[in-house]
């Protein structure tokens, strides 16, 4: 989305840093406040479950642990994809990009499953402040992951068309930053929302 393919590795910029990468980091700084707001909202409302189920009643820790693990490992594959491209190893780059996208999709699949299970157990979006906050927070995260998957797939298409070359590994790096950030947010969410004991009815 940025114009500055020219300055791809930042030679000649004031800081010696690439504009695009700087842009992504600036953006991630901003995202901290976005997720911070959603997480705080959740924390304020976690014990306000009205007549509906409480978080402690319905969270399925083993299941979420697995999907958290999946997302964590997708960070590994992401970084491997980048490292492959930096070596000029286009084939492995594609493999790892695809794997990352698949792991991401698996995570999203898990989330869809979790959401439908919760719905079946009586936790609708409108059930309580807790339910609204929970679905909104994890939903926002899910949307971020999904956007990441779209970006990964675009990279893959680009690679298949032969335009994702070693010289352009920065693009992968930037998508990677985004991906890792989304992962890091989940590390936070997983601990604070799931593992810290939640109120029960």
């Amino acid at each position: 989305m940025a114009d500055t393919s020219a300055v791809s590795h930042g030679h000649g910029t004031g800081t010696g840093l690439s504009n695009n990468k700087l842009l992504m980091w600036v953006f991630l700084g901003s995202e901290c406040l976005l997720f911070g707001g959603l997480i705080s909202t959740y924390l304020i409302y976690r014990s306000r479950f009205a007549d509906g189920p409480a978080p402690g009643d319905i969270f399925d820790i083993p299941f979420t642990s697995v999907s958290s693990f999946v997302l964590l490992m997708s960070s590994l594959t992401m970084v491997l994809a980048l490292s492959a491209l930096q070596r000029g190893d286009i084939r492995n780059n594609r493999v790892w990009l695809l794997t990352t996208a698949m792991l991401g999709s698996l995570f999203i699949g898990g989330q869809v499953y979790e959401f439908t299970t919760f719905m079946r157990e009586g936790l609708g979006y409108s059930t309580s402040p807790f339910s609204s906050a929970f679905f909104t927070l994890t939903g926002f995260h899910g949307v971020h992951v999904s956007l990441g998957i779209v970006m990964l797939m675009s990279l893959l298409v680009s690679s298949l068309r032969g335009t994702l070359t070693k010289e352009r590994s920065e693009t992968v790096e930037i998508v990677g930053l985004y991906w890792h950030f989304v992962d890091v947010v989940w590390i936070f969410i997983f601990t604070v929302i799931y593992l810290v004991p939640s109120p029960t009815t």
Partner: protein
Amino acid sequence: MSTVIEAPAGEHEGEHDDHPTDRKYVEVAIVLGIVTALEVATYFVEMPGAVLIPMLMLMMVFKFFYVAAWFMHLRFDSPMFTKFFVTGLVLATIVYATMLTVFEFWHKG
């Protein structure tokens, strides 16, 4: 804000040389996996909150920064990136922690 912007130009040219190897990445991932396993393990072990929560927080913060340092390359990339990210992070933490404090502890009366 001033702290964020001080990186002298062109100092980090060498960044590409000391990128970790894939092997290192896998090791990092294994460590992360183990810590995650430990985190999950707390779920199955009875523990008073006063022990559990600090422990969980510690592990979370560790994972958080471990990913940022290795996978997001903050370890060897320009410190300016770290500064941006950490500024956002610290600001968010302080501001929202204050808000939560106001909500949880100080709202009486």
